[in-house]
């Protein structure tokens, strides 16, 4: 059962008031402009045993993504492509109220949203993850761990997943007569990536819209909308989070704000990941 959360932090009313006053003046309490993203830093290869990994910091939000490849049979309905499995975990070490145990609805929702963005964007060319058509394919496990929760873990998780995937090399394949042998210890081809995808979250406080809310802002948001984009500005995923509502006009505004932000983040990603 999904239950109204009861362990959310109490936000002093005075804080909300003062945030609204700041926004009226076109600035946020954290010093950012309404549509300004926090700085992104990416450390590739942070977890050496993974086939690919990335530690991503979005402001103080810290997320570690690792990719592991396993040889498996393809799904019946997709005999000629690899599999993708995405999982996001909100670790107890990341925040006071996160509990150990199986993923709760928040973690499950995050996983599914990141999964859909990666899948629907066709960022990964899954058809190139076939070892033997119809019989042996790669399953790409993307495990995303939130280490420090400082708001907007969704956008950070998508960035971490993409960065880790770009960092990934497939195990080497060796043709031996009729069969293909996998040499796990040796790295072969790069993960067949078509292009990156990014998710941009826009929060709503009263009548104001802000990009990339931090933890304090999240506490007083009415609601938020996350939209994923490819470099050619296709929308490849939308999810609304939280109890509040948007008018149709606001959704339009959010879309154009998010689209503009996506271009900047993609620029940044290309620079840091060294992709064309």
């Amino acid at each position, binding site marked *: 059962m999904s239950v109204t959360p*009861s362990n959310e932090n109490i936000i002093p009313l005075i804080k909300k008031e003062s945030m609204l006053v700041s926004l009226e003046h076109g600035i946020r309490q954290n010093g950012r402009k309404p549509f300004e993203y926090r700085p992104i830093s990416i450390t590739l290869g942070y977890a050496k045993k993974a086939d690919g990994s990335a530690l991503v910091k979005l402001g103080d939000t810290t997320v570690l993504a690792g990719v592991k490849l396993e040889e498996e049979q393809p799904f019946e309905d997709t005999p000629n492509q690899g599999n993708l499995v995405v999982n996001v975990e909100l670790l107890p070490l990341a925040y006071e109220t996160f509990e150990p145990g199986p993923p709760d609805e928040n973690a*499950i929702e995050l996983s599914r949203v990141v999964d859909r963005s990666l899948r629907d964007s066709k960022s990964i060319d899954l058809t190139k993850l076939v070892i033997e058509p119809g019989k042996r394919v790669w399953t790409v496990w993307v495990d995303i761990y939130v280490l420090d929760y400082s708001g907007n873990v969704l956008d950070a998780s998508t960035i971490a997943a993409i960065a880790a995937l770009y960092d990934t090399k497939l195990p080497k394949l060796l043709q031996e007569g009729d069969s293909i042998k996998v040499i796990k210890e040796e790295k072969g081809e790069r993960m067949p990536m078509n292009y990156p995808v990014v998710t941009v979250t826009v929060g709503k406080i009263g009548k104001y819209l802000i990009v990339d809310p931090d933890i304090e802002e999240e506490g007083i948001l009415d609601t938020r909308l996350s939209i994923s984009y490819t470099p050619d500005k296709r*929308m490849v995923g939308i999810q609304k989070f939280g109890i509040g509502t948007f008018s*149709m006009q606001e959704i339009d505004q959010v879309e154009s704000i998010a689209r503009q932000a996506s271009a900047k983040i993609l620029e940044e990603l290309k620079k840091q990941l060294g992709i064309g």
Partner: protein
Amino acid sequence: MSQNQKPKLILENGLRTDGRKPDELRPMKMEIGVLKNADGSSIIEVGNTKIIAAVYGPKEIHPRHLALPGRATIRVRYHMMPFSTDERKSPSPSRREIEISKVIREALESSILVEQFPRSSIDVFMEVIQADAGTRLASLMAASLAVVDAGIPVKDIIAAVAVGKADGVIVLDLNEPEDMWGEADLPVAMMPSINQVNLIQMNGNLTPEEFKQAIDLASRGIQTIYNMEKETLKSKYIEFKEES
């Protein structure tokens, strides 16, 4: 419906696989007060999708530490019956059902006047009897009608429809093949009289222009559905009036 090859979704005559025009809704049926025990209940059929919903409350909350000081706690379960799908579905909750329960809860919470019932709970249960595309939105509408049937004050009734893209055409109220093979699925739920969107999701692929077109189409479909919902709620009492 377990074919491996994508069928043609838009036929030569411009119609869809079920004979509808791109901007045409599926036939819908709604009924309230269908269960005796529940405080409010409803059944909705949208095409071949069929949902039953029940509401209990507002009532005392157990365990009591879940109680919120300034508002009611909403507890929601969306669940698919094992025989609601082509292949039997395990009755234990899947990750998909957990996500859907959450987005439905959040949408419902924005419509219910929760501040009126501090420290209480309102429990909402939805069972998918037949799944044939659009179960989350049909469930949300069934839940909204059941909440109203329970006499719980709300800002507005929730009306909802999925729009999407099939063979390059923006279509209203996706059917199962379009849901499975189409290029995009964009469920939208609104409180129409106050122009507020309380659920929006999208998976697939749309340009920003197509997105605008799609949400416009959704708004129009939602208005039609909304009128049907009002009719359903009022007709129960109007019939009586005519009889006497």
